[in-house]
């Protein structure tokens, strides 16, 4: 066999030889051309974000004195009670619309407001400290003028048997009942104004470690944080825990 014959044999057989590459080849090419570049950008922005956090932390530490107590701002709570034509309790039970009864404290002033008009908007605040002596309503309706020196109890319906509970005026509550007829539905709107002076103790940040712990806790929701420092003033800011994913160190 001549050399040229051998060469041409191999040439003819192998010149157009094809073989399917595995998918990892294209993945490697795509990562090199696109993927790693994106990762580099992410790392760049993460490092910028970390720098900003550190600078802000340092600024807070040196220029901002933390407050140990604070006063909650005045809250204005509105309780809207929509009451249909008030029927005597006995009638409601009879008609089947009332399954339970509940006494609701209706301070004198608010009911007076209602009596002036079919109220749809709050006019004035109610002094919650008014003396209240519950007296059940058993007269039909409250559309007429009511005695202002007597506190009232309004009857409202509740769909299910529940433990009787007081209406807490800290959030808007609406009670509606099925209108018995086409008469105009009076609505009682009670606006209460209360000032809560609750001294709440806030855990102060006494050290750099505490500050960094607080910041990291905002970002890192894991039980073991990325890095944890002691918060004691005496101890300085020693590292007590480290969580790098695979590597976890926790000093008790």
């Amino acid at each position, binding site marked *: 066999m001549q050399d040229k014959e051998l*060469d041409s044999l191999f040439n003819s057989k192998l010149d157009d030889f*094809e073989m399917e590459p595995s998918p990892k080849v*294209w993945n490697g*090419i*795509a990562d*090199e051309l696109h993927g790693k570049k994106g990762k580099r950008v992410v790392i760049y922005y993460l490092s910028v974000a970390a720098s900003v956090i550190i600078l802000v932390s340092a600024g807070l530490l040196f220029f901002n004195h933390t407050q140990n107590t604070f006063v909650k701002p005045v809250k204005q709570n509105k309780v809207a009670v929509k009451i249909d034509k008030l029927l005597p309790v006995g009638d409601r039970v009879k008609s089947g619309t009332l399954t339970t009864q509940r006494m609701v404290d209706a301070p004198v002033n608010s009911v007076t407001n209602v009596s002036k008009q079919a109220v749809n908007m709050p006019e004035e605040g109610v002094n919650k400290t008014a003396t209240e002596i519950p007296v059940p309503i058993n007269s039909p309706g409250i559309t007429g003028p009511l005695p202002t020196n007597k506190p009232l109890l309004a009857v409202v319906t509740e769909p299910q048997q529940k433990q009787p509970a007081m209406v807490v005026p800290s959030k808007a509550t609406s009670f509606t009942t099925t209108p018995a007829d086409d008469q105009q539905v009076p609505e009682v709107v009670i606006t209460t104004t209360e000032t809560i002076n609750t001294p709440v103790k806030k855990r102060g940040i006494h050290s750099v470690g505490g500050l960094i712990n607080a910041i990291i806790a905002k970002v890192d929701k894991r039980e073991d944080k990325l890095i944890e420092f002691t918060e004691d003033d005496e101890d300085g800011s020693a590292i007590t825990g480290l969580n790098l994913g695979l590597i976890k160190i926790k000093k008790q």
Partner: protein
Amino acid sequence: MLLKPTYTIDELLNRCKAGERKAQELLYKQFASKMLGVCMRYAIDKMEAEDVLQNGFINVFKNLDSYRGKGSFEGWIRRIMVHCSIEHYRKHHKMMPVADVDEKGNEPSVNPVVIANMDAKDLMSLINQLSPGYRMVFNLFAIDGYSHKEIAEIVGITEGASKSQLSRARAILKEQVIKMEGKIYGYAG
């Protein structure tokens, strides 16, 4: 040449130059199998060939601007693959000095008809069994059409060394072909 009903090779190249990932994937799929065939001839096994193929295509995409449209695009890619194969060889193997072989020595007798019926995979396995230096020179000269002068420049050896390695590679391949012929037909050559 039409790759897809809607794209010509030029359109695809322009999109690849713009960094469009989908176009790059289409171009890769168009030539990957053929280029792996090229890399396979220079590599020991498929794993090594795929490493070279990956680096080769990365070079292709990074240097698309240097393709001026002279000659076929396939020929341009193929040359890149060959150069990447040689580069890989240089990094991972040392050139073995080879003594000159008398090209007009005793040649084993091989029936050309038998060889013509041999499978491409069998021939590929014979090439893969050659030592890296022989394999490279034989591939460059016999299959990819490089001259000894070009081989000497590309690989960094003398022309004499290139000729010697080619002769030795041929001799080994002929012996292997005869052995394979004997296995196929039940007698030792």
